[in-house]
């Protein structure tokens, strides 16, 4: 058994080496397939990161009335902090709000003039609330609305619905893009897999006469099939290595650009997850090579 296995492995290596021309076409096609898979994985990660960043921008800003007492403000903030859905509450005193507003609008002469003409600080305290889950903002908003009615004159404005619409729209766009990418990647992947299968099948077609000869000489199925399966697996492994090498310069160039646009440096992501990424690509390549070879050889094993 071990001797047969050793012979199968040795024959697989030798056949791979001696059929370099045929091997190169299979490896080329497999590399393209794995490149498509890898690209889909990277793009998916960029979208996930973008979505996560956008969702983290969602918060609720509560603008307290300029005349609200600090006890009332603190009471509401304390109640917010005890809510299980609330992740954090940032309390911004009115003075800080005023200074930030001046700083943001320092180049706007109309706003600055208006502020000069006002007597004192026209702004109230602000609380910036972040939820543990974006789906909980509505609940927090409803709580604040009820507090606004209950404690009249304390809460001036709850800024959620205005930004929510914009963020929801962005989230929808990203989700649609994600689904479209998934479908397109899926179609490309199926096409690439079929092309890979046919290429390997063609490679084995050139060896059909050999398979018949081996059968007539008395070789069993596993002895015939084994080297071809191993060759298929070699193709997959080598293709994965080549795909990884191709990604390196591309992602090096793309990294800074994706960081600006998507908020993720894809090169850093690639380096940080190098081994995982290689395992996925190599695994897929080896399995694809194996299955393609298995199916292709089987049709010639019926003499």
């Amino acid at each position: 058994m071990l001797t047969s296995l050793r012979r199968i492995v040795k024959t697989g290596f030798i056949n791979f080496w001696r059929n370099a021309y045929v091997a190169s076409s299979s490896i080329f096609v497999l590399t393209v397939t794995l490149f498509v898979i890898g690209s889909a994985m990277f793009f998916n990660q960029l979208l996930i990161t973008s979505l996560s960043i956008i969702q983290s921008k969602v918060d609720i800003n509560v603008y307290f009335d300029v005349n609200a007492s600090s006890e009332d403000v603190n009471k509401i903030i304390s109640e917010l902090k005890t809510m299980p859905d609330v992740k954090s509450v940032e309390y911004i005193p009115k003075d800080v709000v005023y200074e930030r507003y001046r700083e943001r609008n320092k180049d706007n002469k109309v706003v600055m003039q208006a502020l000069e003409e006002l007597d004192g600080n026209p702004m109230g305290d602000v609380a910036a609330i972040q939820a543990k889950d974006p789906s909980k903002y509505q609940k927090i908003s409803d709580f604040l609305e009820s507090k606004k009615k209950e404690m009249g004159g304390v809460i001036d404005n709850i800024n959620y619905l205005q930004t929510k619409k914009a963020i929801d729209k962005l989230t929808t766009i990203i989700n649609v893009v994600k689904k479209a990418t998934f479908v397109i990647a899926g179609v490309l992947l199926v096409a690439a897999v079929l092309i890979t299968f046919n290429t390997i099948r063609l490679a084995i077609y050139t060896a059909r006469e050999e398979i018949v000869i081996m059968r007539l000489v008395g070789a069993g199925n596993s002895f015939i099939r084994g080297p071809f399966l191993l060759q298929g697996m070699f193709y997959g492994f080598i293709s994965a290595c080549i795909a990884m090498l191709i990604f390196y310069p591309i992602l090096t160039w793309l990294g800074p650009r994706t960081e600006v646009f998507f908020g993720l440096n894809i090169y850093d992501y690639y380096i940080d997850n190098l081994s995982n990424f290689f395992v996925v690509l190599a695994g897929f390549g080896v399995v694809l090579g194996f299955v393609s070879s298995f199916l292709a050889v089987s049709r010639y094993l019926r003499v």
Partner: protein
Amino acid sequence: MIVFNNVSKDYKNGKSGRGGVLKDINFKISPGEFVSIVGHSGAGKTTLLKMIIVEDRPTTGEILFDKINVHRIPRRKLPRYRRKIGVIFQDFKLLPHKTAYENIAFAMEVNGRSDRDIAENVPQALSLVDLEDKVNSFPHELSGGEKQRVAIARAIANQPNIIIADEPTGNLDPVATYEVVQILRKINDMGTTVIMTTHNKGIIDEIERRVITMDDGMIIRDDMKGKYIL
């Protein structure tokens, strides 16, 4: 050793005996015989040999090899059966990406022989066919005669009891033809049964062994010391 009982093969209408490739073939081959099967193209010679190695199946009748009906052997056990027979083809059927040594070694590897056995026996087989200096040559580097000699060496590598040769000299020049026939005679002299199909009148007349003459799927003559009569 080999017995054909009422064997017929019909590709056309599936009914035996009516316009088929083989029609009601009956004969026996004993161990150690050298049998030549002669006939025009289309007589059914190759089909008859294919039946023995189960490359084709009869429409009716049975073929016994050492009293076992070869066409009742389960598919998964066919490889084991085929290893008992050394086969030589007109078109050599060598594995093109293996050297002469590796082609012969392959036949022994499928038989589960050890590396030591292979290392001992392959050079002996090559020596028997006078190809010691072609050990590392690939088939495309060999002449027709040399290829056929490698094929013979492969066929005898596992010391089978029977060699089946389908037109072994069909693609060879007269010198190579003579060499191949001499090797087959030598093998037969060592006790191996040889069944050979051929068109070559000269070989038949020279060998002076049993000749089965076929015509239109039937055996028309079976002479123990036959001549080529067609």
